[in-house]
């Protein structure tokens, strides 16, 4: 009974998911359609490209990155500057997880020299 319900639910999620991503693929615009933006041209003539009719966040970021952050790597610019606050949170997650693992494992195993090493 429970198993059948679970399989049914998974099937429902699968069907609904495929339905919605199918819609997304067919009917939605690309999140960033860069075909009008030749990046070398953008590098030399940034003023030719206006951001006023942007179709998304990414277009503005790509067009404004060079003047505003001067980072050649757009992903690094997004990670550390445009969305730098997320990266702060991300590194905090790492610290939290490590502290949590430390607590749960009851500390790391001491090397043999200190004699009482024992259980981890």
């Amino acid at each position: 009974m429970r198993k059948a319900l679970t399989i049914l639910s998974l099937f429902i999620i699968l069907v609904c998911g495929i339905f919605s991503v199918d819609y997304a693929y067919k009917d939605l615009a690309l999140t960033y359609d860069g075909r009008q933006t030749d990046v070398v041209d953008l590098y030399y003539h940034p003023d030719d490209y206006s951001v006023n009719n942007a179709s998304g966040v990414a277009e503005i970021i790509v067009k404004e990155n060079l003047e505003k952050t001067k980072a050649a790597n757009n992903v690094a610019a997004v990670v550390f500057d445009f969305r730098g606050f997320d990266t702060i949170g991300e590194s905090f997650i790492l610290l939290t997880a490590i502290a949590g693992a430390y607590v749960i494992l009851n500390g790391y195993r001491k090397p043999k020299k200190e004699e009482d090493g024992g259980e981890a």
Partner: protein
Amino acid sequence: MKMHFKEGIHEKNIIVRCGADRILPFALTFGLYIIIYGTVSPGGGFQGGVTVASAILFLYLAYGYDKTTLTVNPEVLRINEAIGASIYVILGLSGILTGMNFCRNWLFDNGAVGDVISAGTVTFMGYTVGYKVLTGVGFLLILMLGLLGPDSSDRKPVKPQKIDPAPAPVVPGKDAKLLSEIKAEKSADTNAEPAADNAQSLEGKEA
């Protein structure tokens, strides 16, 4: 299902040790390169940090757990991770100190595009994250490697570990007693370990 985490590394193998010796400098250099050139090429703090931290794995494979922990003090790693995180926060706060908002890239105008430090705080944040991740992941690796058993050179006979079997599932019968009541009775004994005694002994351990 059998789990082998009672057995540690066999450290006698000279091929592994020589290989690790040769690969280790390259791994470190490559990781540091990924961190340092994060703003101009693929990569960045996280990726490079993890690559550098993999040095711990090489050390472990070649020399075993004890020598690894003697080489790289886990306590130092743990504290340095928090220091790295603090530096990141302070870099963010420096934006406020210069009169802008938090996380402001107030240094961005120093150099041409393509220079390593052209991107201002982006670069330094990348380095900080790299530092934080290499210490953090290194510490995590030591933490996890510590679960493996003692190294093969000085392995003692492993005592059979005491297994505390879980209570068998109880099928509710016809009597009025609910499952939770039975459970409560069973867990009552295990629940009642005195916290005070525990605390005393643990206090000693901490200090």
